[in-house]
Each structure stands twice: as C-alpha cells, then as structure tokens.
C-alpha cells in the first residue's frame, strides 16, 4: 500500500524515460513505464496477451464502484435466502426457479411454464433499459454492474491485498520463484477459488430451497447436479474473473461491438479532454503552465486501467468506461494544482463546442433517448396490464380421437373429452363444469360412483385432469352438420364465480 504515494517528480521522470526509450515491453524493467497494452507500436498481428496490473486509485468513482460491488454481490448472495410466505404446501422462498414442479417464483409473482412470456417481457425491459442508459452515459453497465466487471474487480482486490499494488506485482512476477513468491501466489489462487466456490454455491440456491439445500450440501446428500453446477460455476468464475479478465470483455463479449450503435455524439463517455490536455509533457513544479496542456504525461490513467489501455488514445472498443482513470487523473490534477476533470464524462459534441469556443451543455433529451424511453414505457405498460389481468384459472379441452365417437345402445352418440383445469389460486377450489352451445347434449363423468359428476376439486396451485363424456340423443343427431357441431365447456369457480370457457367440437357420423 505504500506504493500509492509516489512523488510527482518521480512519476514525471518515469514518464519521460518511457517516452524516450520507446520499449515494446509495456512493463519495462521495473514495470514503471506506462504504456497501453493496445498502443499502436506494440501491436503485431499475432500477439500474446500482455498482463495488466491495475493500480489502486482513490476517488469518487472508486467509491461508487465499491458501493455497486457491495450492493450487487449482496443481492446475488442474499436473494435466495429471502423468504416469502405463499401459504401451506408452497415454497416460501422469495425467488425460486423450481424446475421439478415447473414454477418460477418471484416474490408476489408466480410464473407457470406457459407464461414464460412474462420473463421474455422482463428481458425486453432489461435490454431496452440497457439501450437507454448506454445512449445517455455509455457503457455504464460494463463499467459498474456487469458481473464480469464486479468479480474481476473483486479478484484484483484480492490480488492487490496479497501481492501488493501494481509495481510490487510486476516485480513479483519478474522475480525468480522463491518460497515467498510461491506462498503469495498460492494464497491468491486459494482465495480466488474460495470466492469462486461461494459464487457457484450461491447459484444453486436459486433452484432449490436454500436452507434445505445448504444442509444437504454440507452433509454431501445434495443431488449430483448441485455439485456439478457448483463445480461449473467455480471453474468459470475462477477462469473468467481471475485468469481471463479483460479478455472476456475484448474478445468474448458481443456488447462492445453492439454498443457502437447505441452511442452518439451526445452520449456521456469517459473521455480525455484533448483540447485541455495537449500538448502533454512532463511539468516541473513551479514552472509556468502557459503554452502547454494540463496533461503531465504521468501515465497514471494507464496504470489504473483494468483493461490496460490509454484513454488518451480516444474512444476505443476495449474501454469499459469504469471511470477509474478519472479518479487517477483527478488525484494528479489536485497535486499539480490544476482543475480536476482533465479526464471526465464528456460528449463528443462538447469537445467540438469547446474547440469552437462555445460553452458545453448536455442534451440528454434527444430523439434517440426519447425513442428508447418510449419503448421502455410501452413494454412496461404492457407488462403491468398483462400481470394485472393474469388469469388464475386456465382450461384446456382435448377431444378423444381414438375413437372419435361411440354409438351407444340407445342410438345416441357419445364423445370423450380430457379436460385440464389449472388452478393458480393459492387455495383449493371447486369447479363446476357445464356445456353450452349444443342443445340436448348430456355431460357425464366416468367415475366409479364416488364423486359428484360435474364438479372437480383442484388443489392449490395445481393442475387437475378429468375425463368427461358428452352424449347427444339420437333424436338430436340432426344438429351434427357434416358430422360435427361446435360447443363450449364452461368451468365455473363455485367460490368466486370466475368463469373460464373453452370451445371444442362434438363429432358423430355424417348424417
């Protein structure tokens, strides 16, 4: 931690050295040359990865990232343990993806597989939200909230805690293997694996009752799938957060490619104010700032960058807009007693305006954001209406096809139907089944004589399946036009009076 306090003179000297030497190794001898990993001069067609050693910075965005990390990790780890009473016989976990009984519980919401469009709606809302935020302030998602960013940040902090800050880590990696190095590396990977196991461990709790599963996991009685998924997520968390890091964002994630379509010249992006910073160069304390830019070329923005890039090269695909370079630069600006904000959230158009001598301003409300906001509002409204009108009683009727109809001894024709009633209420309900639309048709239920023939009790949150017969007396067979007549099953919830109908056909011989 002592590494963070470095004299400005030293920083400037290092930068000057870096500039004059022009070494292709971005970390130099002692790791004190601050060169972006993607800078043009060391970018051959085939290049192996250059390891990035992000330096710790202090400032408002670092604090914001701490806050977001705590909140997002807390949401992830705590959510499965929240309880939500749904009445007897139903799971009391607030958020539960119950695959065996095919339900998705989300607090007051309960989604059956056939209602998956609610989840689709949520995903559309999420993506529209992402579009809106990106058009206003760039890759806010990437910089602060994306799990890849949060976990990588966490892993970097672990690394920093065990191996020290940037310079120490570079030195450690360059040093020959020793017991101390081995111990530090082993400790780091051990802690990483612990975090990875905890990540995978928390994941499985979303799919089963958390306290029960926790007990089973500890006593090695949990289903094999639970261990399998913990293993899978341990492996991916460790690999993506610890080893792959920025490569995930650069090479694996499609979002950096898509985001280009979301920004425009009015989007707030983390930018280096070229108009203010250039001409850059080392600055000796006490000398004049006249005729030069504010950038002292200390390279702290590069040192802080978790992607290993130089924000001064302009907007680039690798930049996840985490704003840590803003903090790094502000620290330096305070020390050289220049105004903060040499690197700041800025728009292309404001850069242009300043160059033209106009005063900068923000245009958050513009056709693009209005369009995204309107789409967001529309989908949200559709979702709210759909949820408010969500049916709690669904009926489906399936007519027997083999045989299509049966002639009875009195000459009447009988059809068989499979009626399915879905009761989404949280209490058992009794339903009365009746027919409409076919005069003279008689509804019966083949039972062994121990039930009321036309009522069915469906347990809370369950589906019941019942077989019904409909017979049409021989004198009414003229109703069968072309061997078929339409009719409707009416299912009435006796308690609430709620009605669900389902139309179907009655078939018989062609008359």
């Amino acid at each position, binding site marked *: 931690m002592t590494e963070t306090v470095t004299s400005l003179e030293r920083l400037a000297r290092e930068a000057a050295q870096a500039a004059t030497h022009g070494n292709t190794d971005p970390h130099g001898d002692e790791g004190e040359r601050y060169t972006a990993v993607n800078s043009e001069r060391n970018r*051959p*067609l085939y290049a192996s990865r250059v390891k990035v050693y992000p330096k710790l910075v202090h400032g408002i965005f670092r604090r914001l990232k701490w806050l977001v990390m705590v909140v997002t990790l807390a949401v992830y780890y705590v959510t499965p343990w929240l309880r939500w009473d749904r009445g007897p016989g139903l799971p009391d976990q607030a958020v539960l993806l119950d695959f065996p009984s095919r339900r998705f519980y989300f607090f007051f919401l309960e989604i059956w597989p056939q209602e998956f469009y609610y989840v689709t709606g949520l995903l559309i809302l999420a993506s529209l939200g992402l579009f809106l935020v990106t058009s206003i302030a760039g890759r806010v998602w990437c910089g602060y909230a994306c799990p890849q960013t949060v976990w990588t940040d966490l892993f970097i902090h672990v690394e920093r805690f065990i191996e020290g800050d940037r310079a120490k880590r570079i030195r450690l990696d360059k040093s020959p293997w020793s017991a101390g190095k081995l111990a530090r590396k082993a400790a780091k990977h051990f802690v990483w694996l612990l975090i990875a196991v905890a990540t995978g461990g928390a994941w499985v709790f979303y799919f089963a009752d958390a306290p029960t599963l926790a007990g089973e996991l500890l006593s090695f009685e949990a289903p094999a799938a639970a261990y399998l998924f913990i293993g899978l997520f341990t492996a991916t968390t460790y690999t993506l957060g610890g080893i792959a890091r920025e490569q995930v964002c650069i090479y694996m994630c499609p979002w950096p490619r898509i985001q280009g379509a979301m920004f425009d010249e009015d989007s707030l992006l983390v930018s280096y104010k070229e108009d203010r910073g250039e001409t850059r160069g080392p600055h000796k304390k006490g000398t004049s700032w006249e005729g030069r830019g504010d950038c002292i070329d200390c390279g702290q923005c590069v040192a802080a960058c978790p992607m290993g890039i130089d924000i001064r090269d302009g907007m680039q695909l690798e930049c996840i807009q985490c704003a840590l370079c803003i903090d790094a630069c502000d620290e330096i600006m305070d020390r050289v007693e220049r105004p903060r904000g040499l690197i700041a959230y800025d728009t292309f158009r404001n850069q242009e305006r300043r160059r033209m001598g106009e005063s900068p301003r923000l245009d958050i409300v513009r056709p693009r954001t209005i369009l995204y906001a309107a789409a967001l509002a529309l989908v949200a409204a559709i979702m709210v209406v759909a949820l408010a009108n969500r049916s709690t009683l669904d009926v489906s009727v399936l007519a027997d096809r083999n*045989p299509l109809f*049966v002639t*009875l*001894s009195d000459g009447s024709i*009988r059809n068989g139907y499979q009626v399915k009633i879905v009761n989404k209420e949280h209490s058992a309900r009794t339903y009365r089944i009746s027919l409409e639309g076919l005069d003279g048709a008689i509804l019966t239920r083949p039972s062994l004589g121990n039930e009321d023939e036309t009522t069915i009790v469906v347990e809370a949150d369950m589906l019941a399946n019942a*077989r019904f017969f409909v017979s049409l007396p021989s004198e009414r067979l003229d109703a069968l036009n072309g061997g078929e007549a339409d009719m409707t099953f009416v299912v009435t919830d006796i308690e609430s009076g709620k009605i669900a109908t389902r139309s179907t056909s009655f078939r018989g011989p062609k008359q």
Partner: protein
Amino acid sequence: MSEKHKDEVTGVETTGHSWDGIRELNNPLPKWWIYTFYATCVWAAVYWVVMPAWPYLSLDGWTYTKGVIGYEQRDVVSGEIEAIAAGRADTMQKVATTPLQEIAADPGLMEVALGAGRAAFGDNCAPCHGSGAQGSKGFPNLNDDEWLWGGTLDDIHTTLQHGIRWDADDDTRVNIMMAYGRDGILSRAEVSDVAEYVLSLSGRSENADAVSRGADVFQSQCVACHGEAGKGNQELGAPDLTDAIWLYGGDKAAIVETVSNGRSGVMPAWGERLDEGTINALTLYVYTLGGGE
C-alpha cells in the same frame, strides 16, 4: 514451384506454394487442438481393448472382440428392465392382491393400475380391439355401453381371465349361436322372416307380414337365449337385439348371414399368459374406457 519462403510481415514460413502470388502461412496447428487429437488417439486405442470393438470372422461365423470389461448393451437393457420391474413389484403386487373396488377407490393405486392397464392393452388387446378399443366387425367396441358378458368389474375380470370359447380354459365363457340356415334348422324363408322380425325390434322393418311370421320363428328358436323381448342375456352372452349396437352389422343381409351361419368369436383366456396384477389393471382400464356398468 515449391521453395523455401518466409513471410516478411509475420516472419512465419509459408507452405512454399504460390497461387497467383498468394502464399499461405505454414502456421503450426494450435497446441490445444493437437493435444486433443493425441488424446483422442490414445482414447481410441484404450477403447478398442476395453470395449467391444472389432468385427472378425471366426470358425463360428462373424463375431467381434468382446473387450476386457465384458460390456454388453443387451445386458444393460435387460438389467434396466429388471430394475424397473423390481421397482414396480411392490405396487403391482398391491394391484394384484387388492379387491378391484378398493383399487378404484384409491386414486394413487388407480393411477398406477390405469397406467399399467393402458400399456398392457396396447401390447395384448389392441391387435383385435384396436388401439383406442374401438373394435371392428366381430370384435366389440369397449367404449360403448353394451356388454355381451356383463360390464361390471367382476364380469370384465372373468372375461379377461378365462376368455371366450377358449377351449384350453375349463371356466371359459361359452355359448352357441347355431348355424340355423347352414345346418337346415330353418328354411331360407324362415331365416329371412326372423331377420325381418329382428329388424322390427329396433323399429326398422316395413314388412308387417314377414315380421309376424318371423315372430313365430323367434318364439320357437331364439327366446331361450335372447329373451322374449329380444333384450339378450348377459349370463349367456346373448346380445340385445333391440339396441343400436351390432357386433356383426345390423342391416338385413348381415342379420341373415348371422342367423344362417351362426357366430362364434373367440377371445383368449389371458389368465394363462398375464399375471394377476396385469389382469386387474386391464380390468380397471377397460372399465374406465366407456364407464362400464
């Protein structure tokens, strides 16, 4: 054509060929790929030894290397079938020993019985009665409400257990619909008249003279089994002649043929082939098809 050539930009040797001035870099295969390939080669060699692999011609004809662990897919299948049967043994034992009425009153057991019954029906009964039990000429439709030998649970169970006209079973259900015409018991005219009378029982005759002549024939020959009113008799398996269901067809020609040549359909006694649990399951399944009696 082929010559040593090094690409200037990358410093990688090319394949040495040039196509219209275009050269191909001779980069090595990715390491992960090549090691995966080696691993699959090793895997294959081990697999040949461990698992059944190579066919060869022996003195006894074609055979194959059996592999050192003796894996055989047929054994796996029969093992799985045994495991399933063992897992079901308790429940099927219950279905076999519980009285039919009690099974019907127990929804859990009934579900098992109906599932087993549906499967057994498809395997054993569908060839004659049809996959939907809809029957065909000579093979009764099991969905309707006419039961030649009775449609209670016990009646259906007896029919399944002992069959109909199944000589190997002493308790099989037997009756005789004689060949009145072929055996010379009735003349052609009498057969025609009695057929007209049978038509009239379901209100379909327009020849009143023939009906009244046929009534006499019916009284002398048919009432013993089919009853005074032609309502049939389940004790004897005699069909009701007044209803809309005709096993062998209900038009005059079909009735004349039935009276002339008799009818004697056969159903095997399933008791000698299926276990008691399956017979019970089939009984309940057949009963629920049309609601039984």
